[in-house]
């Protein structure tokens, strides 16, 4: 019996590879295992190799695995492209239809199973995926019944007979495989775990759910990979709350429409990836100077320009922090797990309203689309804070022709927020420099006052922000401090025990607030480490540059990967060893 293994299914895009992985992992999730799923896909709809790699474990983990135990192949390309990942004694289970061949030099065993044939016999070749699920999961010691609830959930709207057919396909796959392989493969059986209701979701699901739970009721957005799931989820759920999603004509409309709705008092967000974010730059400045709350999600992907739209990258940090002309207060948060993505999204709306400024939630493709096991989300932790905004309040009557001081020069830089429709609160809002009432003003004194007011707003944020840096500090003084952000957290966590095993004292700091930068927290960690390595999925080391600017350290080393794939734990381990 084993505690974890890695399983991958591959074939051509459009062939149902995604759902094969889906069903396999949903069943295991319901059995109580911890899962991590990562999809490899291309920027095309049908055709082209795609695969879904799923790691199963009896204990929590949040990273893609270095190697592979089981490879399920629907074509030879899948075998050729992926066999090198297989461990010694790994297994390839392939559709006999394409006459699979074992590549030279692999020690894995190949089982050729008639996925398509069995499926055809059951009525439709579509079910070959279920046969494959059955065949490969029997290896793990999973039983047909373990799939019942999943299959029912997915196929029940197509009728009971479809459900039964699919279950049959799983059973037949299992039976066939058992016959082929005999009992020699019990080594792959997973240790049983306690069944527990854990969630299994992608980061985008968590962001969308967080938005809903956080009171967002309106989302104008424009489709883009890997952000679209957020709008696609919310359009299904918002109507129940009186809200909606509008698919706008472009991202500029999306962002300015969100500004309009937030201005009028409704929590509103938009989401996009690099190209869309670049288009929103002017609007972000408008949110900043008009002090209108705004939440934007940037799901980073391979850049620049259209770049590698379906690949992992973390190269938008600088653009998110610096990419609007002029100077505004802005918050840039970076959740590092799916769970955090949920809570951080709720918090983003709170901060946007409290500080009356744009808040960008930066994610990356691996976090947005990678599927992770998540401990049940805690309803009690959902908190809604709206800062100096009170819709209900009775305001004192204004003098004739005097506007409400929407931009009153408050000590903390944050003025009382009122919205259209309220009595005694009429004021003007403009992207031009303005006075306390919002009237345009070119007076140098007023300019200084308003600019200072805006820029001082965030002075307490790094202190107030809960866990601006996730810290895993196992040592007072470390040989090595590893710093990262977003989806690399699970990978770094996985590498730490390996390094510790080699006698290296490692600490880990994962930056969760990118701007304003938590320099003190990080400085303290850096000061107590002999070496520091900043790990990023980009080419120029943007987080490292930020640290240099904000903290200024001579001991920084960088580890960068920008070929479109996430770091493997083994790569990080190797590089850390070399750096030391």
């Amino acid at each position, binding site marked *: 019996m084993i505690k974890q293994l890695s399983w991958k299914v591959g074939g051509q895009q459009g062939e149902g590879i995604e759902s094969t992985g889906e069903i396999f992992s949903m069943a295991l999730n319901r059995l109580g295992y911890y899962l991590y799923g990562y999809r490899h896909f291309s920027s095309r709809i049908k055709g082209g190799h795609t695969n879904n790699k799923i790691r199963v474990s009896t204990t929590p983990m949040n990273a893609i695995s270095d190697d592979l135990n089981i490879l399920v192949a629907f074509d030879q390309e899948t075998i050729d492209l992926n066999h090198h990942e297989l461990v010694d004694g790994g297994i390839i289970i392939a559709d006999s239809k394409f006459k699979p061949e074992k590549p030279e030099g692999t020690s894995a065993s190949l089982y050729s199973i008639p996925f398509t044939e069995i499926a055809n016999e059951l009525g439709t070749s579509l079910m070959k995926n279920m046969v494959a699920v059955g065949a490969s999961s029997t290896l793990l010691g999973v039983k047909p019944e373990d799939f019942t609830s999943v299959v029912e959930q997915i196929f029940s709207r197509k009728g009971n007979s479809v459900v039964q057919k699919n279950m049959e396909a799983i059973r037949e796959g299992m039976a066939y495989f058992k016959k082929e392989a005999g009992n020699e493969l019990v080594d792959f059986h997973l240790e049983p775990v306690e069944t527990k209701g854990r969630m299994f*979701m992608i980061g985008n699901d968590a962001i969308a759910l967080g938005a809903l739970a956080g009171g967002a009721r*309106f989302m104008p957005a424009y489709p883009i990979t890997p952000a679209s799931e957020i709008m696609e989820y919310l359009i299904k759920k918002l109507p129940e709350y009186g809200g*909606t999603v509008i698919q706008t004509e472009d991202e500029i409309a999306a962002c300015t429409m969100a500004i309009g709705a*937030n201005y*009028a008092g409704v929590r509103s967000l938009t989401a996009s990836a690099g190209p869309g974010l670049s288009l929103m730059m002017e609007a972000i400045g408008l949110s900043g100077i008009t002090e209108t709350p705004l939440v934007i999600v940037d799901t980073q992907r391979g850049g620049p320009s259209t770049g590698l739209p379906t690949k992992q990258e973390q190269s938008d940090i600088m653009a998110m922090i610096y990419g609007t002309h002029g100077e505004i207060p802005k918050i840039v948060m970076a959740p590092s797990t799916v769970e955090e993505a949920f809570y951080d999204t709720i918090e983003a709306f709170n901060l946007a309203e409290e500080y009356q400024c744009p808040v960008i939630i930066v994610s990356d493709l691996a976090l947005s689309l990678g599927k992770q096991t998540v401990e049940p989300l805690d309803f009690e932790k959902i908190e809604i804070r709206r800062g100096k905004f009170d819709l209900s309040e009775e305001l004192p009557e204004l003098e004739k022709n005097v506007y409400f001081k929407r931009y009153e020069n408050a000590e903390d830089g944050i003025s009382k927020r009122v919205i259209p*429709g309220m009595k005694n609160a009429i004021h003007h*809002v*403009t*992207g031009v420099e303005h006075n306390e009432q919002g009237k345009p003003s070119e007076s140098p004194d007023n300019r200084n006052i308003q600019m200072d007011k805006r820029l001082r707003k965030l002075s307490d944020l790094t202190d107030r922000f809960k866990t601006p840096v996730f810290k895993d500090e196992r040592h007072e003084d470390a040989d090595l401090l590893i710093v990262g952000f977003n989806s690399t957290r699970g990978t770094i966590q996985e590498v730490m025990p390996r390094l510790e095993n080699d006698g290296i004292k490692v600490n880990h700091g994962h930056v969760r607030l990118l701007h304003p930068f938590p320099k003190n927290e990080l400085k303290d960690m850096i000061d107590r480490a002999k070496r520091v390595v900043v790990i990023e999925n980009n080419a120029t080391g943007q987080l490292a540059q930020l640290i240099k600017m904000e903290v200024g350290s001579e001991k920084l080393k960088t580890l960068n990967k920008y070929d479109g794939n996430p770091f493997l734990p083994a790569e990080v381990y190797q590089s850390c060893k070399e750096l030391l």
Partner: protein
Amino acid sequence: MATFKDFRNNVKPNWCPGCGDFSVQAAIQRAAASAGLTPEKMAVVSGIGCSGRISGYINSYGFHGIHGRSLPIAQGVKMANRELTVIASGGDGDGFAIGMGHTIHAIRRNIDVTYIVMDNQIYGLTKGQTSPRSDMGFKTKSTPGGSIESALNVMEMALSAGGTFVAQSFSSDLKELTSIIEQGIEHKGFSLINVFSPCVTFNKVNTYDWFKENITKLSSIEGYDPTDRAMAMNTLMKHNGLVTGLIYQNKEKPSYEQLVEGFKDEGLVKQPLEMKKDKFDQLVSEFM
């Protein structure tokens, strides 16, 4: 009941004396009063340009945004609170150059916003360059040899884009203009009102006199029926767009708000933010 004076504030417009935009401001104030609005239930969203300053000259909520984006902002406001009367406004450059895509899509989307374009066929604030409404041959700072692009037929375009309220008016005709704006406010759905609003400083061709000579009032065309789309289109083609009055109105087509699933009559802004525990548990269970 509010009178038009209640929609005045104490800000002195910084438009040039004689600018057409003064009348547009006055007409909005009168129309708002006559439509029975109150200042705090109205929001004027404007773009950037001389015209864009208008949001600061009317006693109501005002949002002076960025160049070309008054419409998405205005639509966002309306979606957040459909109890507000939302007026969007700006110049011809704002709405038909940089904002063109939004204009077409706002027309198509049909959210209940009244959009008033102050069309002076020039860029005023940047001191006199050509606009998409400038005529062929028009000399400006950016077309010293005369423009070589033809003026956009914006009213035809609005009709083709599926406009449910398409109208045009003229700054000199305060009565018609006020009435058109009032009808626009009352229209359920998107209304586009293009106003010939002369720039006395930079446009020495399309002057008040020029318009007086060249405009045909639809009210003077016998049998003109603003509910007949084909008639509207043909009349526009015949008069080269130089007509004023209500060109077309479709009262049948429901507005976007009326069609949105689950959208409440009470402003979205008044819906509770908090989620019930049972709802949350349900949502969470969908991921298990």
